[in-house]
């Protein structure tokens, strides 16, 4: 009785929570796999990054980026744990996003009426790449410093409108004050990630309401139990990485302080930026690299329209084979820039980049059109 009164008091003034409870009506299909809970895991990881990022921002000093991170790890209570949450959180978040995108492509989930959800996921990925690179630059390690210096100096040296944007973003070549502005951009764009996740949540709920499940179940307790279990396993993998392999997929040389006179021998980015970094490295000019990265994301966004088969069409054998090749291709892209000792990796990067665009721009329309018949 009293809770009903409270509810209506709140619902009449703030209508959103009432809608939310309505969503737990039995509209969900029974038997969805654990991987369908990836968006929830991504949101959870993003919130953990936001919370740990808030604590790090309290202590981070952009004038002495590397030293202040050392200070956090050594002199702040539980500072090393918070920093671990943030660093491993980035790895786990990107792993979940890569897995989500790949699963969507494999399942052709981007076809109507799922285009908007797919576009929001590509947007999320694009934003995360930017936020992730900014966070990497803020680490101010020996490798990140040179990544930032190269990017800032190249972007500010551009002519025309691109140069205007570059100078606006970096405020001139890398120097005093660059990290301070990147810290603000990192935080603000992280909030944009949260906004995108919110829009994505609305869009997936709208999609779920359209679906007519054969065996409808309510989200509680069925899906809360599944989400909880998914979170437990996610946290287990998280803990194994964070406590026992905290630098997995990261360049070990970045654990040293930056030196403006010494360029580290291996300038490989963190694993989650590696495929994009590889595509950027194929082009010899700054504008070319920017174009490459934008094109890489644009073909993903265009996927609903590149796929020529009907939305309900089945995945054929060739399509599934191509998906395996795409997976290898993206792994190869990342690998080819993390091992510069390998002399053929430069030409491999070019090959993998060509295959990536060939896959989306030629093979996908061709194979889906053929298999739709």
């Amino acid at each position, binding site marked *: 009785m009293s809770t009903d009164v409270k509810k209506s008091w709140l619902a009449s003034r703030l209508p959103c929570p009432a809608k939310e409870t309505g969503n737990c009506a039995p509209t969900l299909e029974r038997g969805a796999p654990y991987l369908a809970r990836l968006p929830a895991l991504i949101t959870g990881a993003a919130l953990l990054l936001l919370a740990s990022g808030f*604590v790090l921002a309290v202590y981070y000093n952009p004038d002495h980026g590397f030293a202040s991170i050392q200070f956090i790890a050594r002199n*702040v*209570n*539980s500072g090393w744990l*918070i920093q671990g949450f943030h660093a491993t959180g980035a790895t786990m978040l990107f792993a979940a996003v890569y897995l989500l995108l790949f699963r969507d492509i494999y399942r052709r989930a981007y076809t109507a009426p799922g285009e908007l959800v797919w576009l929001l996921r590509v947007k999320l990925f694009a934003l995360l790449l930017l936020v992730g690179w900014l966070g990497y630059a803020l680490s101010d390690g020996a490798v990140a410093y040179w990544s930032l210096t190269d990017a800032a100096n190249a972007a500010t040296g551009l002519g025309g409108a691109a140069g205007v944007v570059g100078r606006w973003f970096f405020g001139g070549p890398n120097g005093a004050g660059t990290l301070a502005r990147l810290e603000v951009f990192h935080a603000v764009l992280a909030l944009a990630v949260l906004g995108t996740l919110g829009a994505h949540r609305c869009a997936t709920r709208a999609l779920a309401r359209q679906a007519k499940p054969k065996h409808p179940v309510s989200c509680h307790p069925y899906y809360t139990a599944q989400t909880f279990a998914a979170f437990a396993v996610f946290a287990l993998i998280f803990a194994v990485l964070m406590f026992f392999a905290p630098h997995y997929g990261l360049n070990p040389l970045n654990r040293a302080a930056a030196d403006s006179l010494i360029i580290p021998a291996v300038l490989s980015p963190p694993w989650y930026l590696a495929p994009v970094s590889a595509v950027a490295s194929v082009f010899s000019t700054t504008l070319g690299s920017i174009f490459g990265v934008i094109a890489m994301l644009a073909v993903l966004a265009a996927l609903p329209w590149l796929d020529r088969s009907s939305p309900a069409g089945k995945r054929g054998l060739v399509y599934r084979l191509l998906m395996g090749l795409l997976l290898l291709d993206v792994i190869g892209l990342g690998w080819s820039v993390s091992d510069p000792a390998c002399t053929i990796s430069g030409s491999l990067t070019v090959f993998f980049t060509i295959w990536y665009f060939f896959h989306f721009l030629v093979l996908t329309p061709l194979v889906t059109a053929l298999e739709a018949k």
Partner: protein
Amino acid sequence: MAGTSEHAMEHGGESRRDFLKILTVASGAVGAGAVIWPFIDALGPDADGAAAAHLIVNVAGIPENSAITVTWAGLPIYIRKLTAQQIADTKAVVTSTLVDPASFNSRVKPGYESFVVVVGLNTGSPCALEGNAPADPRGPFDGWLSPCDGSVYDPLGRVRGGPSTKNLVIPRFKFINDAQIQFG
């Protein structure tokens, strides 16, 4: 749970599920608490901040009738060692005649009566007091003098004249041994 009880096949299964469910939820709460704690812990003072908040000052080297200035919590702290004459003089003052009555014992730490530790800011119009450096004028009561409004203080930091009506503030500190005082 109540909503699904009609689906339960038997009483035993139901209670076993209940136990498992309670265990899962409770364990999850423990885990969430363990994750949240570092965030609360991390926002407490860091090691440098904690050290600065509990500044330790060596006072053994201060000669009689002279003072040092240290900065603690963003405030100028004046530490003066009194002479026997100053102690006798300030003890002799009838407390009730003062603007802001305070006894000798309320201005010093028992056992360390020759040390006066005060915040060196005038209590009227705020500015740093003169009288700590050897060359400074100390005013008619041999204490401190405000260059802004002319308020005068005695060696215990009690206001003795001028527009100010409050004695100098005594910061939080304690003697950890004969030679060192610790703030905070």
